């Protein structure tokens, strides 16, 4: 059986070499493209945020990143104008007690690492999520919160926009790998329109149903992306009032994806409200 054994070796060597080469090519392609991909993603993200908040030129957007420092058992919020370097740092203990607040650039909190080491990939800090706060005339005018949920295939990453009165102003899936024609439908304006106008407090009881969607509601949702949001809401005011108390209608054949997004939105908004209750006094808004 000598021949058989040398065949085993040949096949093993061939497959190993092929896999190593494949890894090299893929690694090189990743290194060559990921920087461009990230900046493209950021541009898309920024467009989605200003679109969701329907911002005018008078508004400014501040990005707030939440990080957890397990060693110190502290939650850190870093704020920065959209696309700029971090400028403020607000630190809470895990019990919600304010520990420190100051400018991040100069290491104003006077705690932990030196200023230069305070970037996102400091290994000790675990990112917990991001939110974007729109300010108009010094007070918060709206929020976009990033959320993630496990979809049918892979994670679904999405933005939830809230008005200052904590009403959903829009939901937008920004990254997903659900099946085209089935789960991917949750990323359409028509499906996402079902969340419009729901109050954060009502989300706790929000369910997903497999019942067929009423035809008039379906027809209205089919046009949700085509007109300015406020005009659309005005035109379909009666329908919206009726459907606000109803569950979310699942995409036919994609109940799991529909539920994933709905659960994700509920959880994300819930987390946000608790975080904002802590943050609002620091950022100058109503809690």
């Amino acid at each position, binding site marked *: 059986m000598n021949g058989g054994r040398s065949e085993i070796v040949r096949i093993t060597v061939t*497959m190993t070499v092929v896999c190593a080469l494949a890894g090299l*090519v893929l690694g090189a392609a990743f290194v060559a*493209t990921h920087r461009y991909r990230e900046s493209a993603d950021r541009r898309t993200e920024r467009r989605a945020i200003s679109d969701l908040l329907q911002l005018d030129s008078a508004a400014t957007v501040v990005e707030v990143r939440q990080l957890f420092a397990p060693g110190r058992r502290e939650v850190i919020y870093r704020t920065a104008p959209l696309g700029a370097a971090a400028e403020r740092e607000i630190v809470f203990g895990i019990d919600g007690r304010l520990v420190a607040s100051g400018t991040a650039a100069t290491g104003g909190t006077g705690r932990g690492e030196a200023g230069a080491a305070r970037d996102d990939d400091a290994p000790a800090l675990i990112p917990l999520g991001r939110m974007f706060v729109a300010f108009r005339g010094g007070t918060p005018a709206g929020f976009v919160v990033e959320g993630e949920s496990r979809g049918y295939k892979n994670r679904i990453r999405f933005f939830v926009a809230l008005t200052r009165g904590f009403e959903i102003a829009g939901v937008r899936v920004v990254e997903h790998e659900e099946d085209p024609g089935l789960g991917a439908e949750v990323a359409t304006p028509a499906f996402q329109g079902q969340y419009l106008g729901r109050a954060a407090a009502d989300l706790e009881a929000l369910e997903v149903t497999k019942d067929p969607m009423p035809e008039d509601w379906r027809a209205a949702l089919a046009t949700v992306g085509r007109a300015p949001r406020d005009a659309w809401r005005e035109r379909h005011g009666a329908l919206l009032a009726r459907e606000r108390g109803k569950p979310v209608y699942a995409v036919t054949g994609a109940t799991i994806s529909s539920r994933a997004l709905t659960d994700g939105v509920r959880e994300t908004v819930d987390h946000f409200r608790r975080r904002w209750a802590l943050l609002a006094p620091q950022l100058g808004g109503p809690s």
Partner: protein
Amino acid sequence: MSAALHPGPAPRARDLLLNGIFGENPVFRLALSLCPAVAVTTTLLNGVLLGVAVLLVQVLSSLTVTLARRWIHPRVRIPIYTIIIAVWVSVIDMLLAAFTPALYAQVGLYVKLIVAFAIIISRLEVFASRHPLVPSFFDGLGMGLGFLLALVVIGAMRELLGSGSIAGFQLTPGKPLLFFALPAGGFFSIALLMALFNRIERQVTGGSSRPSAGGGHG
């Protein structure tokens, strides 16, 4: 596929190109990769984008296999072909995501599916693994162009009939025959176009041509 079974003198580039586009058109003749052809061709633009991606993957995979064919152990050629296709699909996926984000948002989901397109591995198996570099390149290019042509024609027909528009420009009010935008309509579109394809071919060749193969899947 007689050329593939008897690798005598190398076939000519022009014949290989025409063979891929007409004689053995992947969709209309070989009836391969019909499912993806149906899934993505709801609009002309989707058809073009995916057709170009398939063209690139086919050519790159054919080139890789023909260059490496001496070292590919025949007993494990299928996993090796699969890895080669998967690598090129991933590379193209990364390039599209990085440099054409707007287009990627539309076809990104489908690009990953190219890994499982029957036409690509079948060309590696029947052609690139048995022919030198230049003919393999033209075979891959011809097959890729044939697939692109098919996706473009199907996409245009379905967009026109299903959505009443061409390349996004609305030509008719509303949706004339929504049926054609749905998956079942896709199969009907392919059947109608396949019949048309056969008819044209029969007229050109004077009725001597064999009927379309059919029976393919994947």
